């Protein structure tokens, strides 16, 4: 049976995955080494921002039509807060159980055997549990460059309320 990767290794491969997608999408990125407010990476595009908490697993829990992840309530509450100035998301990255298969070298490329799913937590309700809450990550919400565009659409809506008295 393959050895469990360290949490550091899982965190770094998640960041690498998000970095690659953000680069392709033309988004800049702030990396937060110390996660004090429930956010690991912030994507940026012309003033707009999108916050993501990254989780990585070698053994995802599958549920009907997707995955489920138990997120601690403290992080959940920070990411769902309706007063945030940028939307908060959870991204679940899935890597093979065998760390030797995470990266494959080919003649003209390297292949990262990592794929992810995302869920928007912004504005969600109070959690029922006291320590963790199960977040559903639907299988159609794959973490892709296009998905990042959708996240920015939500961020744009937050800065576009009607009837503002800007002066």
């Amino acid at each position, binding site marked *: 049976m393959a050895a469990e990767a360290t949490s550091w290794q899982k965190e770094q491969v998640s960041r690498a995955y998000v970095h690659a997608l953000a680069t392709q999408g033309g988004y800049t990125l702030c990396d937060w080494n110390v996660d004090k*407010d429930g956010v690991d990476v912030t994507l940026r595009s012309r003033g707009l921002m999108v916050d993501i908490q990254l989780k990585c697993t070698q053994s995802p829990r599958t549920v009907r039509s997707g995955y489920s992840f138990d997120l601690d309530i403290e992080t959940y509450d920070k990411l769902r807060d309706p007063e945030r100035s940028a939307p908060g998301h959870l991204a679940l990255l899935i890597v093979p159980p065998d760390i030797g298969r995470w990266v494959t070298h080919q003649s003209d490329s390297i292949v990262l055997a990592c794929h992810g799913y995302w869920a928007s937590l912004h504005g969600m309700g109070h959690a029922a549990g006291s320590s963790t809450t199960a977040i559903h990550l639907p299988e159609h919400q794959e973490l892709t460059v296009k998905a990042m565009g959708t996240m920015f659409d939500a961020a744009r809506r937050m800065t576009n309320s009607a009837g503002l008295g800007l002066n």
Partner: protein
Amino acid sequence: MVDNGPDFGPGEIRSYLKVTGWAPVSGGDVAELWSLPGPADEVVLVPMKPGAPDFAKRTRILLQDLARVESEEVQTVHDAIATVYHDVTDLRASHPSLSDGSIPLESGYELFVSAKRLRVASAAATIRRQGHFRNFPTRARDQAREVRLGQTRRGSYIVPIISQARSQEDVYSPRQDHIDVQVEETLFDRRVTATMSRALGVLEDMAGAEREPTRSEINDSIGEGVSYELCQALTRVVNTESVSAIDVSFNWSRVAAPPPGTPARVEFNGDAINIVDRVSEQLKTKVYTSEHVIYGVVTDLSRHPEDDTGRVGVQTLIQRRSRTVWMNLADGDYHTAVRCHDAGIPVRVRGTLTSPPGGQARMNVAGFGPDPSLGADD
């Protein structure tokens, strides 16, 4: 500061962006986007909810963006935003021996005490113009309790005094029919700083002149806010062994125009202090004179076509309570009163005030015009 959350909120950020050329492009309840016109096409996000869990981080990102755009240190931008509503008066003691950033205890003590003395003397002169106060008005002593002391800075020894300022556009509207006590309290802070700046400027001019100031020049300086106590606040510092000069610089809030005619910086070395000492002696011993100063808005105007003077009511704060002071103004001053009323410009009036309890407050006017501490025209 920034790591523990910023020392300011969205109001300060928006005001700072406005005065540095940024303009809002879109906004909601939780965030706004501001852009800076120009080839770089910069856009920044302003978080609007200080209680949100991401407010500190969002502000940190904003500070980094602004520091990059302005080619400044993050701390410099932070300080500029944190003090955007404040006038900061830097009191600096200098001497070759202070270059290591430390100061002898005695000199440091005098510098701190002088900061308060300068403030109280200036506040007293903002209420009454008098050569020697003996007893300060209560409002003047109270005011010194409201101003703040900033972090001292290394190098020479600098004590920053932080006081409130208010944007001209946030003051009064045209044809204002009453004063706002809260606005007046903030304006008083700015008026005190303006009085201090003007008084120290006049004192520096007298100290730097080639001849000794005349009795009449000293008398006139009282009208600009110079007093025995103000002079003493300066001489006490410079007369300590390890201070060779004191300079005072005024960093006016970026949202409120600097008061016209006030110096940005004044300096008093040992030679100048000798003259300040002599001015101070004359102020202490000269004939006791007193002139009240009131600030407020013109709320009542009445004049018959055939009259030489017009009757004007100025609503003001007397002992922190709103009162209307009545006065008769000659043609020129009356027209100024009409103009100030129509434009919503606060006025400053000097003269002899009688305000019997329960009776009508009246002033025999010696000087009437737009309040010069707010950047108003003269």
